[in-house]
């Protein structure tokens, strides 16, 4: 099993979700985060005081997939999230040791 963490621009969520669904991925957790990579922030000015906003709003997606599905999932996310502008985000893949569905007690590939 693989655990995929993807940081994407918030307005791409709908597209990414639909693409993952088409790729056979059935579960997803989304968190609102702030971050930056090489994309610079913007400046706000309040009554003459300048504030540089470095941390930009992003969404973090977390999903667990079977090994065979991982490649399709990654491809789906990156295609749907790409705008070709700086700040599109990143995808990280971690090996997943164990998974369990709490309601039924199923483990492994049956749980994800």
């Amino acid at each position, binding site marked *: 099993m693989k655990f995929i963490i993807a940081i994407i621009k918030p307005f791409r969520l709908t597209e990414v979700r639909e693409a993952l669904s088409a790729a056979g991925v059935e579960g997803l957790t989304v968190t609102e985060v702030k971050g930056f990579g090489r994309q610079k922030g913007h400046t706000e000015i*309040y009554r003459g005081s300048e504030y540089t906003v470095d941390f930009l709003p992003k969404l973090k997606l977390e999903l667990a997939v079977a090994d065979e599905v991982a490649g399709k999932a990654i491809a789906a996310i990156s295609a749907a999230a790409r705008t070709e502008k700086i700040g599109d985000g990143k995808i990280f893949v971690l090996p997943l040791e164990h998974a369990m569905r709490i309601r039924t007690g199923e483990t492994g590939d049956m749980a994800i």
Partner: protein
Amino acid sequence: MTRLTHTLRHWALYVLCLPLLGLTIRAEQAAAPAPQPTLEQRVAGLEAYLNNSDPSAPLKDAKGNIPAGLTTPSVGVPGPGHNAWQMTSTALVLFMTLPGLALFYGGLVRRKNVLSVMAQCLLLAGWVTILWWACGYSLAFHSGNPFLGGLGFAGLDGVNSAPNTDYSAWVSHNVFSMYQLMFAIITPALIVGSIAERMKFSAIFLFMTAWMFVVYFPMAHMVWGIDGFMNGVWNPHAGIKAIDFAGGTVVHMTSGWSALILCLILGKRLGFGKTPMAPHNLVLCMVGTGMLWVGWYGFNAGSAVAADVVAANAFTTTTLATAVASFVWPMMEWLVRKKPSVLGFCSGAVAGLVVITPACGFVTAGGAVAIGIFAGLVPWFFCFKVKGWLGYDDALDTFGVHAVGGTMGAFLTGVLARNAANANLATNLKDKVTDTLLQPLVWEQLKAIGLTIAIAVVGTTVIGYAVKALIGLRPTQEGESTGLDLTDHGEEGYIMESSSEL
């Protein structure tokens, strides 16, 4: 009893009654009927109500004295319309502090300090009232010397519902006192803007108490007291014949210049210049601005202390100057920064209100529009550029708006005051107000400006360092970082965890 004793008893009774009869006759002669006012005099007393003039004037004889006991039902009673407007204005000015200023400032600070600003406004509303009742009103508005009043009204002794003719023919003395109290409350509340987020509650309490006695009560007396040193309109013996309709000097200059000194003594907030300190809730700020604007009608038009033509003019000039300034400020932002901001609209409105404050009852509509333009430009430039050049931390721009605006307002009042706007200028200021741009009044205004700045700066320097030495001014570094809401008040403004278990 025999017939004789019966008769004797009757005669004895008569004899005893005679002295009583004599006394009665003499008593009636002593309580000779009070002189009755003529119908003419009574009508003149009613007309005085309409014209906001003295209802006892028609009762005076050729020498200017009123015959003993001569009065009409119009004398010594409040006039309903004037009193009603004054009570309304009093409520409006309190509304400016609670919650107008509390919201305006509350929205501008960081979330962890929102309650501290509100606590400071609430503290002052209660504590200044106690000081005002005890002796503050008396020190400000009782006659005494040109710089401070006596203690004749301490405990509001003698301050009843009849008018105090030193200040108004038709407004209840107690209502007038409560009205002026609201000014006394909001003036120190303005100062908290500059020292927001980094002055501890106990230090604010101590500082403001001393400040009222050293700066506010004397200034209020000098500008508005009947024998005040700077009361040019009503005191023919005023040392400085300046005019200030609703408090450009007393309220805005004192608070603004004191704010600057205090924020310099305090030092900058931790992380100033590096950490973002953007307003946490501009929605609150805008709501507060609307309340300040509406409430300010009580502040300005209520300073006429009558529902008369002067109040009507002040109402109009206040509207014009504020609206123009709230337009000009964001337009400058649009030009220079490409985006007009909500904070710009709010700041412009407040700046307009500040600058028109001393002038509102003395200038015409055209003068008000001119004032609005200056109010949108000069404080804007100060906040946008000069503050950055000078580098001090005036957290909420109390100096930039109230000191700069108030000082400019006091000066422009001198330039733009016109006899046509207010007939009372002719009472004692005929030679000062000549309806020209650089009339002699301008020089008097400059003197008043100088004295006000001196009092505010020296007073605040002394009190500031004294409080610093006694109990310190700042919270600990950790306390300041945590936020004053928790550190000083043990509360959080917003508890927003979506799970109540957390």
